[in-house]
């Protein structure tokens, strides 16, 4: 069975163009409203105000430790002394900090990438099913998932920890199940050690309600004609999902992926609870909070570490930002 039938292809093309048309109409109105000189001035001032603290952090990260702790960053104007020493200390480790940042940086990747991809995949399929596969109680299920967003994740920390380490209702725990896998098991979860598995699963659980809600709103707004034409042509759900839903949902997928990646990258609470503080699994946020050390703030090192940690979110954001606004608008406002 082929989907390359002229009917569907034409509709697809039409659908891909349609949002653009909508979009330009809306944005021209927006542009009119935002292009008054007052609005421009306001936005510029706001941007400057919002950037000043970050600028302060950047300058502090480049100052020698003594100056950074004794004087405010604005004194660089009269006393411009800069050094890269803080960065090299954070990268290679020193007496007062727990080793270099590199292994924690890698841990952050190992945690964040699966913790963004897994919920994205599950939520996409769930959203499609809830939106376009008619079955009993689908609305009730969607409502239930939507409602789950109000549950604070802090409430789930302890029960989840028990599920992972002790097991519920006398059933084997996640740890035992993972470790029972031959060869791989104890590599993924060493005995007496920590593992990335609980991190991936926890972040997936915490992300799913919002992910399904956002993607459902987007996918359910795709033109009905498309699906009908595809079904007439004999396409299965899987084929529709792969050839129609996926390509059309790229903005929503990208925006959610950014959201989730940034959230996981910046997370400290879940990491402290499930990944612990050892270099084997702790992400960069745990490392940053450790830099302070026993004797209090090491401002120059924390800021340097923070700027290293910020690089990845910035890359992710700027490379995907063109999808970001579109995806957000599509998920919520449209319709």
């Amino acid at each position, binding site marked *: 069975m082929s989907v390359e039938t002229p009917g569907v292809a034409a509709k697809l093309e039409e659908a891909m163009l349609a949002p653009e048309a909508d979009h330009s109409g809306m944005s021209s109105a927006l542009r009119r409203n935002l292009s008054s000189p007052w609005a421009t001035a306001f936005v510029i001032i706001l941007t400057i105000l919002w950037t000043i603290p970050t600028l302060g952090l950047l300058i502090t990260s480049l100052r020698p430790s*003594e100056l950074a702790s004794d004087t405010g960053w604005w004194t660089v104007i009269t006393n411009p002394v800069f050094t890269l020493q803080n960065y090299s200390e954070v990268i290679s480790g020193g007496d007062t900090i*727990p*080793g270099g940042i590199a292994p924690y940086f890698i841990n952050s990747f190992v945690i964040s990438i699966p913790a963004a991809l897994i919920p994205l995949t599950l939520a996409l399929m769930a959203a499609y099913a809830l939106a376009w596969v008619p079955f009993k109680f689908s609305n009730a299920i969607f409502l239930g998932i939507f409602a789950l967003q109000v549950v604070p994740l802090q409430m789930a920390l302890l029960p989840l920890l*028990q599920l992972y380490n002790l097991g519920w209702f006398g059933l084997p725990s996640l740890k035992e199940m993972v470790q029972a896998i031959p*060869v791989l098991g104890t590599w993924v979860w*060493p005995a007496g050690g920590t593992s990335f598995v609980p991190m991936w699963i926890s972040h997936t659980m915490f992300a799913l309600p919002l992910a399904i809600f956002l993607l459902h709103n987007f996918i359910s707004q795709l033109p009905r004609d498309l699906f009908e034409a595809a079904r007439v042509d004999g396409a299965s759900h899987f084929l529709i999902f792969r050839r129609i839903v996926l390509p059309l949902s790229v903005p929503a997928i990208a925006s959610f992926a950014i959201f989730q990646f940034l959230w996981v990258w910046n997370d400290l609470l879940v990491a402290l609870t499930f990944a612990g503080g050892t*270099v084997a699994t702790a992400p960069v946020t745990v490392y940053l909070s450790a830099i302070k050390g026993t004797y209090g703030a090491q401002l120059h090192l924390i800021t340097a570490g923070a700027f290293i940690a910020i690089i990845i979110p910035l890359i992710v954001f700027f490379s995907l930002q063109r999808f970001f606004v579109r995806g957000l608008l599509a998920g919520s406002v449209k319709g």
Partner: protein
Amino acid sequence: MSVPVRRRSAAIVGGVAAALLLAACGGSGSGDNTTSAAPSSTNTDPACADYASYGSYPGTKVTIFTSILPPEQQKFESSWAQFEKCTGIDVVYEGSDQFEAQLPTRIQGGNAPDIAFIPQPGLLQKLVQQGGPKAAPQTVAANVDQFWNPAWKAYGTVNDTFYAAPLGSNMKSFVWYSPKVFAEKGYEVPTTWDAMFQLSDKMAADGIKPWCGGIESGGATGWPATDWIEQLVLRQQGGDVYDQWISHEVLFASPQIQEAFTTLEGWMRNPKYANAGFGDTKTIATTAFQDAGKPILSAKCGMLQQASFYAAQWPSFKKDVTIAEDGDIFAFYLPQIKADIPTPIVGGGEFVTAFADRPEVQAFQAYLSSDTFATLKVAAGGWVSANSGVPLETYTDPISQLSAKYLTDANATFRFDASDLMPAQVGAGSFWKEMTAFFAENKSVQATTEAIDASWPS
């Protein structure tokens, strides 16, 4: 309240990852015997002779969870490096500034560390009631009997079972002063309570306010003032009343405890004496405890009552400060008040609590309570142990040496920081808050003490 060590900052570890990865990779090879590359601890190494009694446990691992962070972490790790080498035990260190919140969560979640360094005996009691801590082995008890003032063992004991051996200690009965200024003005270090207040009057007459203080400490604001009350109660009433006060058999509003509050009123809340360098006595409530001693260096303030760990604070005021009897800054012992209460000392410390009773964990517990470990750790600097097996000359800095001298004194009336032993609602709650109000609002002794009593959980 407790040691700032526990509330500053955060975490992490040394070169464990490499070891883990190596061990893991070894396991994923062909399915044959892969007992990983544990150091084959041959007892032929002469350096290992001292460690032979702990046994040999190649390939085993002991995890530690604590609130103590770098740079202290590195000193701990180096002081048990030889132990690791000789016994084959891999000690995995994890520090977190979220220790108090994380530990109960981990225990309930089935993810308890093998060993935790707990700074509050009150928390130890709570954990024992909930289940988790394992009784200390006989070897540890024997070490504690041999090396510590008996009061320490009592704080590691819950319901007649001994759980936790003391680790580090700090000495809170100190008064910081500037030997330089004292020499210039011809002041003598006071050795009696009365002499200390004669000196205060003399300073006031010379135009130097004698006392500075600060009790602001974020969410724990008020704790330094609870220490002042504790010093006074122990000095005026002795150890028995102090213990009854902790168990609330003696109320805050009783005449004995109110006497301490009244003395404090004439001392730190006396406008003639305080708050030097900052303003009126109300500023005590708003001054950060870390900053409180700063005016001493510029001779604007005469004295500050604060614990031994405050030594770490001075270099942040003045880079090349010398802390010595003839230097910029030093401390003297806060004098006793009554002759029949010898050398009252209020102190704090951590307790080594085990949550597993595997032989390698017990061997490590025994090592941590030994004089071998304490001496090595003390030699690394900036740390005091109340372990009397440590020779005093091991201490490299004068303030640690002075602390150790008092902490290991077998005749001293040693008591643990009371607010760390009271129920958390009081010891980490109303006691702090009311002491803050005592200074910030000039709340009366009667109203302050009654308010704390009212908050005591029934």
